[in-house]
């Protein structure tokens, strides 16, 4: 009997093991539900996507890896960055020059990756600044800002888009102003202020930006813009609010009209008009700043005049589409047929049909005009309405599978809905009050519909508290299934207004490891230690210095006197990946230099007191980094000391 029991129990045990084995097999499904697993990028592994995030009022752009949410880099664009010396050293100061002079700060809003045939091509990232109207190009071989162009006769540079072959960058005016500026009563705004939409031509080889023309629109506030794509290529769409043209207490006075507008603009038609000699030159002054990556030096040029176009002069080029209640987002789906308008205060989402719009234009079926610009009939161009989607719709992106995803600021959620039947499929909360969202390629013909990132305006309790000021928060969702799944929370820099994601494979191979010393074009570069020297020119002293593990050449300098302007031109002689050297000088009223291998950077130092002052390397470069230091002797003003320099007595 005992034996039978034993046999029976071992059989049962065996059965258990087998069923356990079977279960664990089936649990591979449950395993794939493991959220941590899906955002875990193992040490040493790379993320699948780059995410370029706007830094908002930080003025910078941050680069994240997705899905891990790891911060890879902060690229200084519109603000000084003491860490990299951007906007502090002599080479990069001109980048922040404007018609108002040097401006150390900016408010970086939207970002867009260049496109070819409506698909992300990874050539450049473009962005813009809201406060001092400027646009910028980031080069993706160096991940540095390559160019900044000021937009004249505009204010609150906000509605921003890149056309589907990167032909143009579009920069709209959010704060209507007298254009060009003049002294006038604010009360007389209505009908007298303007809202220029600026078109910047992009050079297809260099990404270089050139002010092409401005369409001088009525003084509404132009908010968000997107290009037509695919079917609607050649058009651009931008929302307006404050069609009331209120100049005070806008939160009330700009919220009175039942409908505001989305402007539909046929830029190809306007381009043709310009090419045929149309348009008039208007007074303008703007800075054009170009950075040479070979010389680590920017030049700032002041330019004058801008070609302007009155939309009334080009029939059939500009139309208004009425849309309920102070619209914000204006997003075009991958096919180019649907234009999703988000009335911030509306209880529904409006989707316009491009083909219906074209038909309405052909039929000349207008519902009056605003300042001579035809207004289309709302019913004629309506594609559909998403009923009761949420509160406070802002922005929409697409997954390329017929679904749209819209953020709702007030109800703090992302809502997935179908472009086929306008029915809501899923909704997930965000933490908290989401603004923009981003799907890699979600603003192109070809979205990579795997992840969605929600960028939230309010953080509250999501992370360990850090005093009254919290970093903004982003959330990553998996959107491969019917239902969205929240995977990850991560803090962001400044206030991300929008981001652009791209598969890492499209750009990572182009990323440079070093600057080539033999291609260094810096005016004061030296390529080897034997050329290092110190030269006096009046009260200017130029130090031609090199850095290599682990010393400066020269590292002993005499002959400087109080009142001199000492320019340190420091070249990093390394040609090895990730061996930067830094340079700091006691008493210099500026930031350090951070010099990548093969590059040269220049710091200005104005010694104020006699003595012997140390300089040192700020970036832990090698085992003997601590020893990487030197001395400069400062003699009294007027003592005319002999210039001397040496390394190891030579």
């Amino acid at each position, binding site marked *: 009997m005992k034996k039978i029991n034993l046999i029976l129990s071992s059989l049962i045990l065996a059965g258990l093991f087998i069923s356990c084995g079977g279960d664990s097999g089936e649990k591979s499904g449950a395993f794939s539900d493991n959220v941590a697993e899906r955002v875990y990028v193992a040490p040493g592994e790379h993320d699948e996507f780059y995410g370029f995030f706007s830094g908002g009022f930080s003025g910078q752009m941050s680069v994240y890896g997705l899905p891990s949410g790891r911060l890879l880099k902060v690229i200084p664009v519109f603000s000084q960055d003491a860490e990299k010396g951007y906007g502090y050293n002599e080479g990069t100061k001109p980048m922040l020059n404007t018609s108002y002079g040097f401006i150390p700060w900016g408010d970086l809003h939207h970002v867009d990756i260049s496109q070819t045939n409506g698909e992300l091509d990874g050539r450049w990232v473009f962005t813009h600044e809201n406060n001092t109207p400027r646009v910028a190009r980031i080069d993706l071989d160096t991940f540095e800002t390559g160019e900044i162009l000021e937009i004249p006769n505009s204010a609150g540079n906000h509605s921003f888009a890149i056309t589907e072959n990167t032909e143009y960058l579009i920069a709209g005016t959010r704060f209507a102003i007298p254009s060009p500026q003049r002294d006038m009563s604010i009360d007389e705004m209505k009908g007298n202020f303007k809202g220029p939409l600026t078109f910047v031509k992009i050079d297809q080889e260099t990404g270089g930006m050139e002010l092409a023309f401005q369409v001088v629109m009525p003084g509404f506030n132009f908010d968000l813009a997107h290009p037509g794509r695919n079917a609607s290529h050649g058009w651009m769409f931008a929302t307006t609010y404050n069609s009331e043209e209120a100049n005070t207490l806008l939160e009330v006075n700009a919220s009175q009209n039942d409908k505001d507008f989305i402007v539909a603009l046929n830029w190809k038609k306007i381009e043709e008009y310009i090419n045929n000699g149309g348009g008039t030159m208007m007074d303008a002054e703007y800075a054009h700043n170009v950075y040479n990556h070979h010389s680590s030096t920017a030049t700032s040029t002041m330019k004058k005049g801008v070609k302007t176009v009155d939309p009334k002069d080009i029939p059939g080029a500009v139309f208004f589409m009425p849309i309920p209640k102070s619209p914000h987002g204006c997003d075009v789906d991958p096919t180019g047929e649907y234009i999703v308008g988000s009335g911030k205060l509306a209880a529904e989402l409006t989707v316009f049909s491009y083909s219906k719009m074209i038909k309405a234009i052909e039929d000349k079926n207008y519902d009056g005009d605003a300042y001579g610009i035809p207004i289309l009939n709302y019913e004629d161009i309506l594609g559909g309405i998403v009923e009761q989607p949420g509160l406070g719709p802002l922005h929409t992106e697409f997954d390329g599978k017929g679904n749209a995803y819209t953020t709702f600021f007030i109800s703090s959620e992302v809502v997935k809905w179908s472009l086929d039947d306008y029915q809501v499929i899923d909704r997930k909360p965000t933490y908290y009050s989401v603004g923009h969202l981003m799907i890699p390629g979600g603003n192109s013909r070809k979205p990579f519909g795997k992840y969605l990132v929600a960028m939230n305006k309010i953080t509250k309790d999501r992370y360990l508290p850090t005093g009254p000021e919290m970093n903004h928060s982003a959330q990553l969702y998996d959107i491969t299934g019917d239902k969205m799944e929240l995977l990850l929370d991560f803090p962001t820099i400044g206030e991300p207004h929008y981001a652009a994601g791209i598969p890492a494979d499209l750009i990572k191979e182009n990323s440079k490891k*070093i600057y080539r010393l033999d291609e260094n074009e810096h005016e004061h570069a030296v390529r080897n230690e034997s050329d290092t020297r110190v030269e006096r020119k009046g009260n200017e002293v130029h130090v031609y210095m090199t850095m*290599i*593990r682990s010393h400066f050449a020269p590292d002993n300098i005499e002959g400087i006197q109080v009142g001199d302007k000492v320019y340190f031109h420091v070249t990093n002689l*390394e*040609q*090895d*990946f990730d061996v930067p050297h830094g340079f700091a000088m006691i008493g210099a009223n500026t930031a350090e230099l951070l010099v990548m291998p093969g590059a040269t950077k220049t710091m200005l130092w104005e010694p104020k007191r006699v003595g012997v002052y140390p300089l040192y390397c700020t970036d832990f470069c090698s*085992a*003997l980094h601590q020893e990487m230091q030197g001395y400069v002797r400062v003699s009294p003003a007027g003592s005319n000391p002999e210039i001397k320099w040496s390394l190891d007595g030579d």
Partner: protein
Amino acid sequence: MKKSGLLMILGSALLLGLFYYPLWNIQLGAPQYPEPLGMDIYISGIEGEEEFDIQNIDGVNHYIGMKKIPKAEEMWEFNIFPMVIGGMAGLGILLGALGFFSKINPNWFLGWFLLMSVLGILGMYDFNVWLLDYGTDLDPNAILKLTDKEGNPLSYKPPLFGTDKILNFTASSYPGMGGYMMFAGMTLTLLAFFVGRKEYKKIKI
């Protein structure tokens, strides 16, 4: 002796690969160099695997006071080696051709093989002497002066063949494509000798 003659020609011709591919390759990996620094040793000089590898190896080596990697004109070997290899390849091809038309005894093939082996061993010996000198003749004012347990200065000699740990670096020293072609070629010439012996006997009969 058609077969053996062809083998001999092919085998000696493979030596010519040394004019295009490196004889030897030394790689230096370290925690800081996940992509190892590498040098390709050609019969006519030393080149970096990547453009700046030699410069970076020299940069790293200056801490322990090693000499810079020699340029081609700084070592007589890089003048002699191409002549020796070219000469031996030419000689082998000539012998193969003569063998092909059965003008010579296959023992010539063996003779060529033995001569090449002796030259090869001399070459390896010379290479090792250089490595030893390179790894031990250090600047007395070196930044890092390290000694072993017995108080003798550490040798930084990379291995002639194989993998060795030198401080934070792992040095791997193996034949390059040219080296493998040479070994394969020499094997073929030895094979040519054995095949030739059989063919030669048949001719004799």
